[in-house]
């Protein structure tokens, strides 16, 4: 059968929405960002002449202004960080200077670092094509866990451009630097793409890996220039300077063209005003995705959780089934899929055989999936930065594109629907990393000592004086001081004990036992496993249902069997928090503290929820070990005399409501993702002996969010009070303090609790 390619109906789709009053009633904002032509500049005259010639052949007449600016800044010897949206040709910003350096000096080397393997392989492919056109002898190799041992030696000796990831640099290249002499001696450029990915604990680790890299470069006498690329965040230059501890030149003036872009904020209609309940975002998202599919508009749908991805994929596939029952036009895509499966989906997108992709933020990073016309966000992604990044998936150099953000009932989403100007006027979020996180630093300091003996007066990162560290490690038998040098004195390979990402390393595999030949269908990080792969859980994969029959926790395996049931499962995580150190305390006007805490989480119970109505069908128990995390927190206590005035129930409800709201609103002030900050409360806390609300960094070791909460608490509490007062619901709803339990008035209870801090709140 000859497939007829229907013309895209994006113009028709947009017109139909405009004419649909039922749809338009729910539109909180419809903004049109006009198309913009390309801004170009000539190639700099110092560039090796073969490069412009090769680019001409590939259809690039002249570079965009930001590409030219990048070249100029590098020429001056600066380190640069480039901030440009998806598909703006940032790759050339680092490939051009790298190729120029190698064409001039065949000994020159470059190191490309990508946070994930998939990204690395895409970039190698594009560099390789350019090298082919140039006809130059430039060897580009990927060096990662999959590189065969037989090829490694050649890569170490002869690879001009070595493409790898920070984990491999940390665990393999740096500890074996003597095998990489050619690279270290001739290192001209270090490229760090997707810089914004290095936030939180991954960023703290990355900063220390870079400290070690720079230390070795100094030993071998090379002084590489750093080229970083970041998606739009508030502080790209600051992040680059934090991670690399060098001054950076920011290149942010994007010269790439883009087509007309529509941004629509869609707020599902209220179905019960008293309870503040709106139509579900998932169902509304599905309807919008369905209409796009029917208009033959390619789309990417972003859901917030794997579960949502699977539920949406499942229902959309049913919509899209052709007479033969094929539904390959709709595909799910998320982190747990196997690489081969993901590559297949990416190819389908580029070829147009896949029309709708439902994804978690796995696609947020810059994997090349071609041009997609529309993007539907099921709920606010949590940050302005990732919203723009997800929206950037839909967007082409010419022709229109549309992004529809469907709001959930959460306070943050509702705040944006009420104040869309916030989204367009505020800067995107800061990406934070803390290179001097004590545990991270000491681990990498050991790695550094292994790699090269420390000198007595040597600096490390921004530590001018390392003598305390060196003396402690000497006392513990890791180092031996001889004259003015500290030598590694242990059989232990310190890098083997250090993982750069909390979750990445210890993935569980998911094994399907439905057929006689068991088959691995996916993998999952260990922190998510208790929630989604506990025994009896319904695990959804590519829209198919599987039940977990056995979870072998020690061996990191989950055995599943395909089932067909009308429910899904939802696990409850029980969290406990314990203070281990109080750094700062302030008694008035707000009784608050800042310090270190241990958070333990355990999944003990799960609910069975009906697929279509989401009603609770029953529950089951989970028997799994708890996970622990040490982090930083800010906490606020309710004064004793105030508690006496509230009944136990009222206090409990009020605390619950305030905690819920603080957790939702804090990201607005901290410029962080919703998942980076967590809340916890005790109506009588074992440490403070008072009712206490905690806000903590949901990132091991902490990255400085709670420090900021400590300073901003007054404003945060005032904002919480304003939201409660402005909310039209009667006694509490998901958009303010959360649904009221029983017949309690959660709103007034929360206001009572807030009133306890009196004037301090108003001063926010």
């Amino acid at each position, binding site marked *: 059968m000859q497939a007829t390619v229907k013309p895209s109906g994006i113009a028709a789709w947009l017109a139909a929405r405009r004419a649909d009053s039922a749809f338009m009633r729910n539109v909180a904002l419809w903004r049109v960002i006009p198309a913009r032509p390309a801004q170009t500049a000539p190639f700099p005259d110092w560039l090796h002449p073969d490069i412009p010639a090769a680019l001409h052949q590939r259809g690039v007449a002249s570079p965009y202004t930001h590409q030219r600016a990048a070249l100029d800044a590098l020429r001056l010897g600066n380190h640069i960080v480039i901030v440009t949206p998806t598909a703006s040709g940032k790759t050339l910003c680092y490939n051009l200077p790298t190729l120029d350096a190698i064409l001039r000096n065949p000994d020159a080397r470059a190191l490309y670092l990508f946070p994930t393997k998939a990204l690395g392989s895409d970039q190698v492919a594009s560099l390789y094509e350019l090298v082919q056109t140039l006809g130059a002898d430039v060897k580009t190799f990927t060096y990662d866990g999959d590189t065969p041992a037989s090829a490694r030696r050649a890569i170490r000796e002869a690879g001009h451009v070595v493409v790898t990831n920070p984990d491999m640099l940390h665990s393999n290249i740096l500890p074996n630097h003597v095998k990489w002499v050619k690279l270290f001696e001739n290192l001209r450029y270090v490229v760090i793409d997707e810089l914004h990915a290095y936030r939180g604990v991954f960023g703290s680790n990355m900063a220390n890996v870079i400290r070690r890299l720079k230390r070795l470069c100094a030993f071998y006498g090379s002084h590489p220039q750093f080229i970083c690329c970041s998606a739009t965040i508030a502080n790209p230059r600051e992040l680059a300077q934090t991670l690399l501890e060098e001054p950076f030149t920011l290149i942010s003036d994007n010269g790439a063209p883009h087509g007309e872009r529509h941004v629509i904020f869609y707020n599902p209609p209220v179905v019960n005003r008293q309870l503040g309940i709106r139509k579900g975002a998932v169902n509304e998202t599905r309807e919008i995705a369905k209409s796009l599919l029917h208009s033959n508009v390619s789309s990417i749908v972003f859901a917030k959780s794997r579960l949502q991805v699977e539920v949406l994929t499942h229902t959309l596939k049913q919509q899209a089934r052709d007479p033969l029952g094929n539904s390959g036009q709709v595909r799910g895509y998320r982190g747990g899929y196997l690489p081969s499966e993901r590559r297949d989906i990416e190819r389908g997108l580029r070829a147009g055989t896949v029309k709708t992709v439902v994804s978690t933020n796995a696609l947020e990073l810059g994997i090349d999936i071609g041009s997609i016309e529309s993007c539907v966000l099921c709920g606010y992604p949590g940050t302005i930065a990732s919203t723009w990044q997800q929206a950037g998936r839909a967007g082409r150099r010419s022709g229109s594109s549309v992004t529809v953000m469907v709001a959930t009932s959460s306070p943050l989403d509702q705040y944006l629907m009420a104040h869309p100007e916030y989204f367009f006027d505020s800067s995107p979020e800061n990406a934070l990393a803390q290179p001097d996180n004590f545990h991270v630093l000491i681990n990498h300091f050991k790695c550094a000592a292994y790699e090269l003996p420390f000198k007595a007066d040597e600096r490390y990162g921004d530590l001018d004086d390392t003598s305390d560290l060196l003396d402690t490690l000497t*006392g*513990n038998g890791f180092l*031996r001081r001889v004259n003015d040098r500290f030598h590694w004195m242990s059989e232990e390979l310190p890098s083997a004990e250090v993982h750069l990402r909390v979750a990445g390393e210890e993935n569980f595999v998911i094994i399907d036992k439905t057929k006689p030949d068991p088959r691995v269908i996916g993998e999952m990080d260990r922190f998510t496993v208790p929630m989604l792969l506990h025994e009896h859980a319904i695990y959804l994969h590519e829209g198919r249902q599987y039940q977990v029959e056995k979870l072998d926790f020690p061996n990191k395996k989950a055995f599943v069997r395909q089932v067909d049931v009308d429910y899904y499962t939802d696990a409850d995580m029980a969290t406990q928090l314990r203070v281990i150190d109080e750094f700062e305390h302030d008694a008035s006007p707000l009784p608050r503290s800042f310090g270190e805490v241990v958070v333990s989480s355990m999944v003990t119970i799960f609910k069975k929820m009906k697929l279509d109505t989401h009603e609770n069908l029953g529950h089951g128990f989970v028997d799994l070990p708890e996970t622990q995390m040490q982090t930083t927190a800010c906490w606020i206590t309710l004064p004793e005399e105030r508690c006496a005035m509230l009944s136990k129930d009222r206090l409990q409800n009020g605390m619950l409501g305030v905690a819920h709201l603080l957790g939702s609103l804090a990201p607005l002030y901290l410029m962080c993702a919703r998942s980076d900050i967590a809340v916890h409360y005790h109506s009588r806390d074992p440490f403070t002996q008072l009712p206490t609300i905690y806000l903590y960094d949901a990132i091991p070791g902490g990255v400085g969010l709670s420090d900021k909460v400590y300073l901003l608490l007054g404003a945060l509490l005032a904002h919480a009070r304003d939201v409660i007062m402005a909310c039209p619901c009667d006694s509490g709803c998901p958009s303010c303090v959360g649904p009221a339990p029983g017949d309690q008035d959660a709103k007034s209870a929360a206001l009572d609790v807030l009133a306890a801090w009196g004037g301090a709140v108003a001063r926010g």
Partner: protein
Amino acid sequence: MIRNLKGKLQALAQPPLAEPAPVVEEACFVRDSAEPLSSYPGLLDVTAESVRVMTLGDSRPFDIDRTLFLDTETTGLAGSGTVAFLISVGFIEGGKFVTRLLLMRDYSQEYNQLSLLADLMDGMDWIVTFNGKSFDVPLLRGRFIMQGLRRRWRELNHIDLLHASRRVWKPRLVSCTLQRLESELLGVTRVDDLPGADVPARFFEYLKTGRFGLLEDVMRHNTQDARTLARLLAKLSRTYGQAEEQTDMLDVLALGRSLYRAGEIERARRCFSVASVGATAGMARVALAESYRRGGSWEQARGVYERMAEYGEGGAFPYVALAVLAERRERNPGKALLLTREAMRRARDDELPGLEKRRERLQRKLDMR
């Protein structure tokens, strides 16, 4: 900056086991011992020819007087933070076999230790090690870089006895550690030997206490390793020279395979023929037939397969091989089909599906005629 760094570090601090030993001077410790060459039977008879075979084809000139036997003791597994604190080298000098220990008594002596090694390497063409291709040599190359002695490092021609020994004795001995080769082949039994895995801890203990006596075991162990290298080289050379005369047929067969890989086809075939008795007969005949087949000597190959079939060796294999020859060389699918049926009668269960496909294909080929 780190909040309360001193306090946090104090929480990690452990009471020291003992006061660290004082640092000694910059010159490393050197100890020579010499033995008469009569203790190394056959060492002077090692020829370029036998070296060529045991290295699978390295035919550069060989001179035993310009050959360095080398073994190291290290502070851990390979990596830039691992140090070869003890290097034992063996060489012929003044009609004796000299073993020289280069021991760094502290990290400050590594420069001197490596310089002395470089002096020795300057007069040498070949280096003989046990697993040195993967371990000792890359490690030392790295140490030279770390100590700023890169210019003094020389890449010598390399005989790695681990690989050479495995090719010859692995089928019989299964494990080919240096100690096992020593006791099985050279009749050496070590008394009170220090297990290699304990060596790093022993060195660190010495550094902490300064008790030099702790290293005596390590030095004895390492010296013994260097001497064994020389005896093992001589033994390998002799064994290759008398390949067919070895008493164990597993050795003869392994030598044959090794000779074959080194391009000594005729000598390899003699080994295969000799080993075509008893338990090794099947494997030896397969190797022999393969050597003919790859050399294009179809008739000889067929002869061997037929003999295997006659003696009932190798199960289905000779029938399959004959079927292939019948189909491809003799262009006789009818005969090939008969042979395939014979093969199927002797096949293991896991061989049957493949044979069934072959049978069907041959049947179709016949039907088309």
